[in-house]
Structures are given as C-alpha cells and as structure tokens.
C-alpha cells in the first residue's frame, strides 16, 4: 500500500497546475468563493453588531446584568413588593472589587399629568451618581439637566412623552401612584430634564426621579424595588451572579438578565443558529458553482486521468489529487474572502450609520449606527464550513473520476 505522504508532491504539482490551466474558470470560481465568504463574515459581523447593540441597550436601559428583588416583583411590580436597601454581607459583596457598578432603584406604575394630558408611565427612582454608570442616561439628556442628588425634587421625562403631554422643560407635572396601604400618593414635579433614547418606546414610558424623593412620596423609607448590577460583559455574568447570590439574604430573588428578559436571551441564543444557517445558505449557493467547476475540470481531462491510471497511479491517489485541487481552490478563495471581509469591516469599526433606514431599525430595538462585531468564532465557522462542506461536495465527482476505466478514458476524444 502506497500512502499519500510519499506522493504528496506530485499530487500537489498536478493539482496546482491543473488549477491554473483554465484561468478564466478558476478566476470566476475564486471570485464566487471569496465574495461568498466575504458575505458570510461581513453580514455575520453586522448581525452580531446589531444584536450586541440590541442587547447592550436593552440590558443597560433597564434590567442591568443582574437584578435583586422581591420574588413577586417581576409578576407584580407594585410598591408592596419592595425590599430593604442592601446591608451587611450583600453590601460588602456589592462594594467589593469586581462588581463594576450597582444601584438601587424604585419602580412603580404611575400616572403623569400635565395641564392638558395624562398618561400611564413607569416611574423610576434612581440614585443619580450610581445610575450614571449603568444607563448612560446623563448622555441622553437633550435639554435641561440630569438629576443631581438622591433628594433632587425634579423629574426627567422623554422627549416623546413631553410631546404627548404637550409640555416642556421647566413646566410642572403631577405624578400619581399608590403607597403600600393603597392610599393615593401624588406630588407635583418640575421637569428639569428631557432625554432622548434610541428607543422611542422608552422615551414615552420611562420617567426618572430621585430615589429618596420617591421613597418619601410612596412612604417606603428604607425600601427599594430592586438592586441592579452591571458587569463588564453581558456574555459573562456567571461569576458575579454566583457571588451575589451567595451573599443575598433568603427571601430575595437574584436573576441574571437572560432570565429577566427572555426575549433578549432568546435573541442571543438564536444568534449562533442564525449565523450557521446564513453561512450554510451561502455555501449552498456556492456549492453549485464548485461542483460544476470540478465536473468540467474532470470532463476536460478524462484522457489524462485515464493515462495516469494506466501508468499505475492508484484510484485512491487520483481521488486525492482531485480533492486537493478542490481544496486549493477553496483555500485561495477563503484567503481572499477573509481578506476582503477584514478590509471592509475595519473601516466600519467606528460605526455604520444607517440613519437613512433607521426608523425601521429603532422599532426592532436597534440604534441607527451599527458597529460590526467580528469574532474569531464566526470567522472560523465560515472557514470550517466552506472547507468541510466544500470537500464533501467534491468527493462524488472526484470519486467518479477515480473510477474511470483507463482504456476507455484514454480513447475519449
């Protein structure tokens, strides 16, 4: 039995030279493979970028990476289901190194009224200093100012809500909710800031006031609705989650973001599947060209294949030779495609502005600027799929060629 090893050089020579025999066909095929691979990687990086953006915004805007709250709060976000401000072991765990930031929040349903209109809202009591690190709200203030302290008497509303209420910066609004004893709690607030969020829905529903001010209004001194933690990367919150869970007193619930926002979590989990499907769809389109190229290349040199068989090259080596030819084509195409992807994605690192079509995107929870996210995993996936499936689809034509009858092949014209 003669192995592939000792014959590699002659097989490589034959493959390489045969590849360049029909320049035009090879060039076309290389173009197709590289554009296909480019499309796989480029589009995947955009999709990843979009989902990253969606998740980062979605997570930052409310849930944070991890939440601590009353076990009933998620089902019934009422003031009854409040918890005490953190203390003891939990406070130590929160302030210890490793937690990027955390904040207490109060969240209750409320009604806001201007002199003209009233609307149902999500009233959020925040600690301005801590919150600044979590939501990025200060940067979204388009008019007026951000809250200055936990006792600030002002309120911040979204631009959209201001429009709906037909009110504006500096005007007063009345906010009405219930205290734990089901008594109406209401108070006038001056609008000290207007914010603009990427998501229109948020502008309309989220109204921010200072934590201590709301505690007083709702008669829940010392209590909050939830504690929100943010870590460095939403993909990797497990260790923080375990640490905080261990330090949290019984009777409180600790949840990572993916259990709170199951839509975002599903989105995140589906991404790998989407990417794989996308890569395979493009490959399928490519595979027709690949098989056709190979079949043509074999058809054109049936006599040669007959000749090398007649001279004593085993069918197995002929199979390898044709597979190697296909592999070379794939590898060159991949190299070009990867390069193409790299040079097109690099310049977009500062963001691809899609504001022209962004209105539709905002509805999906995506900002108007996409930052392509190129991951090694996706690049490897595209390359591995192309090589593996490429070789797989080449096996049949190559095997057929290896089984040609030498005499008949030699006498083909």
């Amino acid at each position: 039995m003669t192995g592939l090893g000792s014959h590699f050089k002659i097989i490589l020579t034959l493959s390489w030279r045969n590849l360049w025999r029909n320049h035009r066909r090879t060039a076309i095929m290389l173009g197709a493979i590289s554009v296909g691979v480019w499309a796989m990687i480029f589009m995947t990086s955009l999709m990843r970028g979009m989902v990253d953006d969606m998740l980062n915004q979605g997570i930052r805007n409310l849930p944070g990476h991890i939440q601590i709250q009353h076990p009933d709060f998620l089902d019934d976000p009422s003031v009854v289901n409040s918890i005490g401000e953190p203390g003891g072991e939990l406070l130590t765990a929160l302030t210890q190194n490793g937690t990027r930031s955390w904040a207490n929040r109060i969240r209750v349903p409320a009604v806001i009224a201007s002199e003209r209109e009233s609307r149902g809202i999500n009233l959020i009591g925040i600690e301005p200093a801590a919150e600044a690190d979590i939501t990025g709200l200060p940067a979204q203030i388009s008019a007026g100012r951000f809250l200055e302290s936990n006792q600030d008497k002002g309120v911040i509303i979204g631009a959209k809500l201001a429009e709906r209420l037909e009110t504006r910066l500096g005007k007063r609004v009345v906010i009405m909710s219930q205290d734990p004893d089901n008594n109406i709690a209401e108070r006038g607030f001056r609008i000290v800031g207007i914010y603009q969020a990427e998501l229109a829905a948020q502008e309309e529903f989220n109204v921010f006031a200072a934590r201590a001010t709301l505690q007083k209004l709702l008669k829940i001194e010392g209590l909050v609705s939830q504690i929100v933690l943010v870590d460095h990367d939403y993909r990797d919150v497990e260790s923080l989650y375990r640490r905080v869970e261990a330090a949290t007193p019984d009777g409180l619930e600790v949840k990572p973001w993916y259990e709170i926002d199951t839509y975002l979590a599903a989105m995140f989990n589906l991404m790998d599947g989407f990417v794989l499907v996308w890569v395979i769809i493009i490959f399928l389109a490519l595979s027709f060209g690949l098989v056709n190229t190979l079949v043509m290349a074999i058809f054109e040199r049936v006599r040669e294949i007959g000749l090398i068989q007649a001279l004593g090259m085993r069918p197995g080596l002929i199979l390898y030779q044709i597979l190697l030819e296909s592999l070379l084509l794939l590898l060159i195409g991949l190299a070009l495609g990867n390069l193409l992807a790299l040079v097109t994605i690099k310049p977009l690192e500062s963001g691809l502005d899609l504001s022209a079509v962004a209105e539709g995107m905002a509805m999906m929870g995506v900002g108007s600027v996409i930052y392509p996210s190129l991951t090694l995993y996706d690049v490897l996936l595209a390359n591995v799929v192309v090589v593996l499936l490429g070789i797989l689809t080449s096996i049949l034509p190559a095997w057929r060629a290896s089984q040609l009858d030498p005499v008949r092949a030699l006498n083909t014209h």
Partner: protein
Amino acid sequence: MSAIRCRQLCKTFKQGDEIITGLDHIDLDIETGEFVCLSGPSGSGKTTLLNAIGGLDTPDSGEIHMGDIRVDKLERGPLADMRLHHIGFVFQAYNLIPVLSAQENVEFVMEVQGVPVAERARKALDILKEVGLEGMEDRRPAQLSGGQQQRVAVARAIVSHPDLVLADEPTANLDSVSAAHLMGLFQELNENHRITFIISTHDKRVMSYAKRLIKMRDGKIIGDEAQ
C-alpha cells in the same frame, strides 16, 4: 516478474447492436527477455491484446498469467501497482500529461514509485539525452512535435527498467533515423537488462529488429515465427 501466458483470451466490444471481435481465443506464451513484434492490419486486435496483457482491460474470458500472478483476476489497486512497478507503456494515441514538462513526464512514473528526487532527475536527464531530446527537458508536450512527444513517452516507458515494455506503434511518428535509433536502444535494453519487449507495429523496419514476429488478423494469431 516473468513469463507471460495467455490462455483462450476472448474480448468483444459492443457497438450499438453490433458485436465486434477484439480477441478470439488467443493462446500465447512469451518468455522473459523475448523481443516480440505484433503485426497485422488495422483492427486486427494488437492494441486490445497489449491492453489485456498490461492489465488495462479485462478479457471477457480466458486467463492471463504473469509469472505466478493471474493478471485478469487482480483488483484495481494491485493491478495499478503491477503496472507501476513492472510494466513500461507506450500508448498508441495519448501519452503525456499536458501540465508537466518533458522531464517531469519522464519522472512521473518514478515519482509515483517513490524513487528519490536526485536519482530520478539524473535518470530522466540521461534517458532524454539518449532519445535525442537534450535541451528540451523543460518543454511542455504542447511545445513538442509529435515525434518528440513519442520519444518522451518511450523515455518514460524504459527509464526505470521495467520487466516488460508494451509499446503500441512507438515509431509511428518518427523519421527512419530516429526510429532506428530507438529500436537500437530497445535492443540494447533487451539484451543487457533482459527486459521483455512486446511492440505492435505496421513498420517493416521495426519488425526487422524482432526476434519473434506474431501476425494477427480478426483477433486471432495467424502466424508466430522466430526471426
């Protein structure tokens, strides 16, 4: 590898409804070191017989022995190995790999055999010089004349001193000087290295080198005489 024995070899070809006789109950013994010419009109079965002996084509019935080996019973792989290591071929119509140079074509069989680089390069250059193609080593087949291509094919067939050379019309495209030179080379290899030659030809000059002349017609042997 040694003596060739064919017993009751039959081969037919179908062409539409027509059945064409290629070989018709051929009995033939060729001893090691013989120098045999096959002659006969076109279509008499010379190529078919060479292909059967060389293990390129399986007969419909009958036996082919080469020493202890039943050639007609070998699987594709072992058959390929047998051709590679024991037989040198010169085909009638198509001989060279277009993407390889003259030298690479000559080296091809040795390379598949696993002969070390330096040795096969030396042998290839020597034999190309011997067949009068010095200076043309790097040319591709398309840059060679029909006769030059044929000489490259002959060089490849004999370069690694196989046990048996099967040459189908090896002088068809050659002028008489080149043909005579080639036959002299065959004769020398036959006498000094005991390589068996079976050469099919229409050429009277080639036949004059034969020690045994076999005449064929309609797939049968109609004459077999020592010269």
